[in-house]
């Protein structure tokens, strides 16, 4: 007879892999896969030591030069993810393959497209729990992923205070000016620019929105002490991702995948801290 935990995981896993698949299709549509970047001659690793090590092992340089291998890895990620959705007994094996393929794919892509996207880390951490065979370990890693999400949000809010962004008058309107110069000069009818332009003209509202954004991130600190408000936090997180996409043109949906950990745990009054 299936336990309560196993039922939760059986419901949760297809949600995670399903959303991952949707985001992956969006990536394909946005040319963010190896196939399109194949044969790129330039790499950019800066001081990213993980990428240094990978380059020393030579395989990203080899993969990017072989278009067939790029295609194989890209399609491998898609196919294995589909298996992860439907396979219940062997899901942990497919999840391991998926995590490995995705790590290879995304590392190679980021090195050779000279573009380092921070939120990719969220996808890795969100998929990690499913590599465990035992359900109790899966639950433990889902909880770890939840704490990682809380860390991201809280540390981001903390830096807005210590780096002075929050205290600066008209910081958000100025940020929007910098962010949307291309739209202002070329495509002013774009929805992001229409919203931003209105906010730049109504600075009080824009400043208020930036404080609201800060509060949305800072309030995640509650999650360290209780899981009671997880669903509210998930709604806030989703709102954060959607609004940053439409106002700032920043893609934050990878964090939403990690945010699914907030709806895994049922509300509890139990006090739990890291």
């Amino acid at each position, binding site marked *: 007879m299936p336990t309560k935990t196993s039922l939760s995981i059986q419901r949760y896993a297809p949600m995670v892999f399903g959303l991952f698949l949707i985001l992956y299709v969006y990536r394909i549509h*946005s040319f*963010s896969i190896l196939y*399109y970047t194949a*044969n*790129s*001659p*330039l*790499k*950019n690793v*800066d*001081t*990213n*030591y*993980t990428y*240094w090590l990978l*380059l*020393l092992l030579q395989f990203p*340089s080899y993969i990017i030069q072989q278009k067939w291998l790029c295609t194989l890895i890209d399609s491998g990620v898609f196919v294995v993810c589909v298996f992860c959705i439907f396979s219940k007994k062997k899901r942990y094996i497919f999840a391991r393959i998926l995590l490995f393929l995705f790590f290879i794919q995304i*590392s190679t892509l*980021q090195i050779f*497209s*000279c*573009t*380092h996207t*921070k939120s*990719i*880390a969220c996808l890795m*951490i969100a998929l990690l729990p499913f590599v465990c065979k035992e359900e*109790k*370990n899966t639950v*433990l*890693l889902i*909880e*770890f992923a939840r*704490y990682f999400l809380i*860390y*991201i949000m809280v*540390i*981001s809010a903390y*830096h*807005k205070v*210590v*780096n002075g*962004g929050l*205290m*600066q008058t008209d*910081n958000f309107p100025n940020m929007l*000016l*910098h962010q949307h*110069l*291309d739209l202002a*000069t*070329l*495509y002013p009818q774009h929805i992001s620019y229409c919203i931003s332009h209105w906010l730049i003209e109504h600075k009080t509202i824009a400043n208020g929105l930036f404080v609201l954004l800060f509060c949305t991130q800072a309030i995640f600190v509650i999650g360290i002490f209780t899981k009671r408000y997880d669903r509210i936090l998930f709604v806030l997180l989703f709102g954060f991702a959607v609004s940053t996409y439409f106002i700032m*043109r920043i*893609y934050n949906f990878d964090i939403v995948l990690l945010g699914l950990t907030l709806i895994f745990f049922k509300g509890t009054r139990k*006090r*739990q*801290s*890291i």
Partner: protein
Amino acid sequence: MKYLQNTFLFRAFKQNKFIFCFILTFIFFQQYFYSKKNSSFPWYVWIMYSYPNYEPDTLTQLEIYIDNKRLNLAKIPIWQEAVLVNTFKKYYELQQTNYHESFKQLVDERSNELKIVSKNYIENTICNQKEEAEKYKNWILAYMEKYVVQKKIHQIEYKEVHYKQTQKQFTKAGNSKLLLTIKHAN
């Protein structure tokens, strides 16, 4: 004591030592890279958009012209825009520094610490070489022809343009600077 037993790390320690060590290692590296302000995948420092932004006198923008027509970056997917802009920035940086990577000194310092692998191997593998940079023009031309405009391109120009905000309108300030021209071989 009961409070301590209820903590996540304590429960992880009791449940599975391997996972507990994994989590501790992850936290250690996260804290280490955070203290160094270094972003090494999958550990990152989440400080984006936290610094003050001031109202600028002029704004500078990188513009791409394909056959003398400005490419509307807002109409292409954000990742494709990132590829076009970031790979160019890398190429331009290399070109301006005579193909000398900005972090080459750091690579040298680190490779001195690693005696087991030859210094040249490390340097050649991590840093871009002149021969690789020289392939960039052809690659980006082919990329734009195939995936951006889907037609043959005769010329691509990357320009640095300054804008001034006057009466809520952006107007070009001064002459634009031509950074790179790529012409089709035929």
